[in-house]
């Protein structure tokens, strides 16, 4: 009960701080944080799978699916409300995730990772060849509306940032609750010893299939936000390097702390932005070296720095 109260206070405080921060930030930094949070949502889903011992390299599938759901709905149905688009993106991705998850959850290790990657590359191929869906040029999206409000300029940027902050804090709080729940503990146990979980009477397949559906829904939400933030989407959203970036963020953060996931995503976006400016052809090198340092010095990711402080509370910070 105390933990539930703690997370509500923490979430409320974080949201208030983020919104206040947004008012003080320049537009370019608000955009950067919006993108970092959108991608962090996808990585959050991957971390949920990592807690059960699975790594999904193909979450670009849902990032892209969410983005195209928003794009096609806005273009062909004229629906531009961000709440409706986000909800639709989540539902579509959760349904597709449920269909694939039922099969994928029977696989482990590299087979699971590569199968998810293969499915995302199938989507990439289909979108690239489909003229009706914009081929490799993708789709341009209209500016989103917010429950009837049609902000422009700085206001639009702030509204998008605020929506993303709310989505991030709510998703983070829900995932924190899940990670600390009975099902969350079983997921950790699956990572350690699947055989024992089965012989205690729980279904490993069902548990991991559910974690996959949750990851798909978060991927879809991230995709909707990213597409609306840049007013564009293209097949690159499903490309394997995009999926690799999400895994990069998840590994950098580790599975011990939820804020660390979004912090890692911000680090990635900052390094990408500044290195594109100052050393455009070697920024991946800088990221790779940074990841190697983290893996050697903090094998459980950046989150282990925070988690150690919270260990006594028995919860995932």
């Amino acid at each position, binding site marked *: 009960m105390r933990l539930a109260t703690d997370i509500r206070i923490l979430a409320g405080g974080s949201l208030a701080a983020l919104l206040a921060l947004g008012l003080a930030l320049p537009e370019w930094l608000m955009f950067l944080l919006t993108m970092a949070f959108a991608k962090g949502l996808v990585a959050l889903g991957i971390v949920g799978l990592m807690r059960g011992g699975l790594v999904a390299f193909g979450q670009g599938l849902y990032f892209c699916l969410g983005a195209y759901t928003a794009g096609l709905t806005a273009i062909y149905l004229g629906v531009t409300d961000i709440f409706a688009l986000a909800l639709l993106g989540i539902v579509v991705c959760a349904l597709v995730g449920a269909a694939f998850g039922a099969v994928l959850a029977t696989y482990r290790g590299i087979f699971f990772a590569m199968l998810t990657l293969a499915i995302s590359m199938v989507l990439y191929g289909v979108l690239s060849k489909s003229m009706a869906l914009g081929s490799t040029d993708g789709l341009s999206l209209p500016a989103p509306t917010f429950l009837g409000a049609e902000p422009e300029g700085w206001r639009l940027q702030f509204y998008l940032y605020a929506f993303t902050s709310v989505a991030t804090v709510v998703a983070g709080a829900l995932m924190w609750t899940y990670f600390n729940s009975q099902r969350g503990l*079983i997921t950790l*146990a699956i990572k*350690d010893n699947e055989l*024992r979980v*089965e012989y*205690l009477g729980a279904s490993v397949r069902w548990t991991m299939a559910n974690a996959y559906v949750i990851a798909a829904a978060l991927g879809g939400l991230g995709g909707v936000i990213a597409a609306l933030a840049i007013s564009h989407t293209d097949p690159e959203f499903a490309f394997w390097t995009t999926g690799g970036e999400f895994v990069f963020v998840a590994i950098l953060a580790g599975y011990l702390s939820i804020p660390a996931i979004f912090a890692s995503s911000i680090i990635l976006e900052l390094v990408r932005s500044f290195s594109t400016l100052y050393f455009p052809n070697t920024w991946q090198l800088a990221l790779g070296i940074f990841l190697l340092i983290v893996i050697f010095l903090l094998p459980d990711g950046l989150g282990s720095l925070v988690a150690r402080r919270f260990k006594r509370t028995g919860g995932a910070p």
Partner: protein
Amino acid sequence: MTPVLEAAGVSKAFGAVTAAMDLNVAVPDRAIYSLIGTNGAGKTTFVNMVTGYITPDAGRISFAGRDITRLDPQSITRLGIRRSFQIPQLYNGLTVLENMMVALTISADRKPSYWKPAKDRSHAERAREHLARLSLNDQRDRLIPELSSGMRKLLDIAMAMAGRPKVILLDEPTSGVAADEKFPIMDLVMQALKDQEVTILFVEHDMDIVIRYSERVLAFYDGRIIADGAPDEVLADRQVQRYVTGVVK
């Protein structure tokens, strides 16, 4: 009386190797059976077939009159048949208390919650009670790699007992345990299981343990049951002495 666990004509082969041949066993409720035999005699194959890890090629296994021959381990466990392992199957990254909490969480709720905290106070208290039954409470904050072999065996059994099973199969509960720990461990386990009125089948190589704790003995050799009876009778059987115990008088 209807046996709680029954195997009728159960056979299993792995390629050219026959691991179990025409096994017929009827275990009454609350009985204590030991399964003896040399390595490869078919004891663990029998345990694996009863608990759904292996599906028999022929025959029928029933539990409380219900056919469980082709059920998976999860379904069989849910019905009330639990097992411990020769090599304890624990969660090495979790503490003793957390291991027990996982066992209780899975056993208590058919569908564990996505919302209810796994580590609330009442849940931890229940886990401590279960650990106390096997004198594991002092170890509750230790990680598994820090435990002795005997403690790991006890925790493995404590986790198998979590869902108040009707039948429990213990695969070599004292193997790898120091000689002076064997009897104290078996005393603890047997008392706790008797308190729960559980039917017990245990695989064992130590004949002193077999004589002391079992009511009936099944002797396996070459995939077959060559003797079935009271411990004294079975251990006096010439075939058992020749093929199992190696003590021919």
